[in-house]
Every structure is written in structure tokens, then in C-alpha cells.
């Protein structure tokens, strides 16, 4: 970075910080805060926040499995498997999560008799996220050069050994950074599960709001609570990106 660029960056950051501080100050002045009403319900927030964490974790783990299966399915020898995987990925990526939640929960889950709304919610979130992860994994696998596969063939590795020893370890480099980003997306997207009555963080804030009528005091902690989860994950994604960019 040149000196000129450094000065510009510093000025920009200072300007943005000043504006932000001014805006916050104006809001704080204009509103008469009422935190005491919300404070009574802190346990609701806490429980919702914890639920969001484990729901997101479960959905991430399950969606990696689904993504891996779909990515391998797209490269399968049997056309039926390839079509099935491609159909799943395109269908999910082409429709909003909210629509998927409504259809899969009220129609499909109901039809197959899946009563547990937490299980249903996690499953739907995983199906949604799995389609995106499948494309990341496919991109990672396809980034492996032909000469590598040739080498694997030459030394006599089987198809599975080639995946295990040659493709997966190298594809990880390409997949890990966007995967960390996807983890942050899952945390945010899990807020939509509130419409199914799953008591995660967003639903908790809505409940507090309707009990206290303190809208901003209910939703400000909500935003901060999500940021507390997504910021570290985003930082991790950034670090992974840098780490793998320089290491060949």
C-alpha cells in the first residue's frame, strides 16, 4: 500500500466512524429507552441464542454431508444419480428459503408424519444449505488438474483411493474458505425458522417485543447477538482464505 492510499484509507475510516457515532447519538437522544422491561426477559434471549447456536451447528454438519453426497452424485457414473443431484441443487438454489420452509414444513413434513418441528426445521435448513455446499465441493473437486488424476492412475490408485489421497486433501484448500462463509449464512438464515414456531433467537426477540412493546430494545440485542456469532466465523473465513492463498 502506498502512503497516499494509507492516508485515504485512514480518512475514510475516520469519516465513517464519525458518521456512525453521530447517527447513534441522534437515535439515543430521540428515543426514550426502556431497558428495564426487556431485562426481565433476559433468560428468553439467552435460551433463544443458545438454541440458534446448536440448531446452526446441527444444520451445518448435516448440510456438509448432503453437499458432499450431491457433489459426488453430480460426478457419478450413473446418469440417474447425476440428474437427481443436479435437480436437487438447481431446485433449491432457484427458490427462496422462506418458500422452501413453507412447502417442506407444512406439506412434506406433514405428509411423512414428521412432528418434531426442531428436527423438521434443521432438516429443511440443511437441505437448503446443502445445495450451496454441493456446488462449493464440486468446484473444489474440479479444480484438481488432470495431471494429478493421471498420476493417481499411473501409481495404481483405485477410484476411492484417488478421492481420499489426492482429490479431497487438495480440494479442501478451495472449499474451506467459502464453507466458513456458508456457516455464517446458516446462522443468519436460521432466523427464518421463527416462522415455524421454533424457539430460536429471533422468535425469542419477537416474544419479548410483544410482551414489552419495546421494539428497539428487543431487536437491537438480536442484531448484536447474531453479529457475535457471525463476526468470528467471518474472520475465520478470511484467515483461511489468506492462509490457503499463499500456500501451494
Amino acid at each position, binding site marked *: 500500500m502506498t502512503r497516499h492510499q494509507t492516508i485515504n484509507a485512514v480518512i475514510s475510516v475516520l469519516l465513517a466512524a464519525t458518521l456512525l457515532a453521530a447517527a447513534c447519538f441522534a437515535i439515543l437522544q430521540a428515543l426514550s429507552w426502556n431497558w428495564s422491561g426487556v431485562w426481565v426477559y433476559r433468560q428468553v434471549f439467552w435460551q433463544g441464542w443458545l438454541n440458534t447456536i446448536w440448531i446452526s451447528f446441527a444444520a451445518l454438519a448435516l448440510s456438509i454431508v448432503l453437499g458432499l453426497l450431491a457433489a459426488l452424485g453430480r460426478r457419478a457414473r450413473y446418469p440417474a444419480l447425476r440428474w437427481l443431484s443436479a435437480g436437487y441443487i438447481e431446485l433449491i438454489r432457484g427458490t427462496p428459503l422462506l418458500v422452501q420452509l413453507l412447502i417442506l414444513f407444512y406439506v412434506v413434513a406433514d405428509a411423512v408424519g414428521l412432528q418434531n418441528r426442531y428436527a423438521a426445521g434443521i432438516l429443511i435448513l440443511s437441505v437448503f444449505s446443502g445445495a450451496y455446499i454441493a456446488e462449493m465441493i464440486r468446484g473444489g473437486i474440479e479444480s484438481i488438474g488432470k495431471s*494429478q488424476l493421471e*498420476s493417481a492412475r499411473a501409481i495404481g490408485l483405485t477410484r476411492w483411493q484417488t478421492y481420499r489421497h489426492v482429490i479431497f486433501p*487438495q480440494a479442501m*484448500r478451495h472449499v474451506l474458505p467459502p464453507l466458513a462463509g456458508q456457516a455464517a449464512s446458516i446462522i443468519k438464515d436460521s432466523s427464518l425458522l421463527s416462522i415455524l414456531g421454533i424457539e430460536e433467537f429471533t422468535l425469542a426477540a419477537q416474544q419479548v417485543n410483544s410482551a414489552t412493546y419495546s421494539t428497539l430494545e428487543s431487536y437491537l440485542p438480536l442484531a448484536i447477538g447474531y453479529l457475535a456469532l457471525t463476526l468470528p466465523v467471518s474472520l475465520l473465513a478470511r484467515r483461511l482464505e489468506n492462509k490457503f492463498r499463499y500456500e501451494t
Partner: protein
Amino acid sequence: MKLDFDDITKRYGDHTVLDAITAQLEFPHVLALLGPSGGGKSTLLRVIGGLESPEAGSLMIDGQRVPTTEQSLRTFRSNIGTVFQSWNLFPHLDALANIMLPLTAVHGLSPEAARNRSLELLERLHLTGHAHKRPAELSGGQRQRVAIARAVAIHPRLLLLDEPTSALDPEMTAEVLEVIADLKAEGRTFILVTHAMNFARTVADQVAFLAGGRIVEQGSAEAFFTAPQSETARRFLAKVLKY
């Protein structure tokens, strides 16, 4: 070693790379495949190594037919050591792990035994200090020597070297050619595709000259270089040995 080609044909689309080759090549230890680029040398080497299946024809190595099904080809390939022009090492593994992988994954050696055998080879190729470096941290010559070590480690019945020095500068080329000369001194059997004519002349027992997808002529290295029989070979040698 004896190679029996019967009507071997290989096409890429409309382009015929190997044009119904029928020939017998016999050599004690080292065979060099020479000829102009695009003449079919590398493709023939890949057919011998079971990496490329010909559209037609068959190949016998020492009286044994090279298999055609993927399953048996894998076993066949695992007993042949192949060295590529651009080394094709696995970039995520260090030199030692590159050599060990075929030993443990394909040949069923214990990690212990594979490690010992690999370290021994690295030492013989003067690479001991580089055992734990990844390919990106090695020079071209070092990479190619690791690739040779990987190919030799499996105790192959046959080694195939596909233009092993074409991607290297002169100094590294010398480094690698020295190793290949050592392979001959150890009595290993190998087939070499190369543009390094003077080296081919000193190291090869037998030479096959390919042009236009056919084996135009074959003979002892000495005979080929001193008195080539065909007009194509004469012109080729005159051109490449001129400077």
C-alpha cells in the same frame, strides 16, 4: 525385454496418432523412443504403460498381453513406474509422503517399511535434506528426482520416462540425466522418450525412431546414430544434431 506390437492404432478424433503399428522391439535394458514432436513417441509410451487404451490392436510384454479392462489395467499399471515430463508430484504431500503413498496404498507395505525404503532412496538421490519439503519448495531437478524415486520405490518390472528433462534448464537436466544413467548402471529396465540425443546415444541399448505414427526404423543405438537407414531419420538427426 521384448515388446510385441500387433496393429496398434490410436486416434484422437480424426487425428491418427499411432497408425497400425506392428513391430517387435527387443532390448536388454534401455530402449529410447526418438523422433519428431507429434510423431507418436509419448502416446506409444503411454500405451505401453497402460495409461492409454488403443482403439485397435494388442501389445504383448515379454509374452504377456497388456490387459484391456480397467480393473486389471490398474494392477498392471501399479507394477510399472512412470515418470512424466512435468513430474506430476502431489503438491499437498512432502517428498517423503509422495514416495510412500504408492507403497502403502497400493503395494500394501507397512508405513514403517515404506518409510525406510523411501528414506533410503532419497538418500541415494542426494535428497535427504529435502524429505519434508513439498514440491513447491523444490527445484525442478529435485522434483524430477523425487518423481524418479517414487517410480523406482515400487520395484517396478519396467520404468517409463516420458521426456523427463524437457521442462528443465540445462543444469537441472544434467542432474536428472545423471540419475537416469545411474538407473542403467543398477541394471534397471526402462523405456525413455527424450529429445536429449547425445544422452540417448550413451544410455540406450536399442532405439526406435517414430514419425507419423509409425515406427520408421529401429536398431542398436550405435547403428542408429552412426548410420540411420531411413531418409526421415537421416534428415531428423541432421537437423537436431546440427547445433
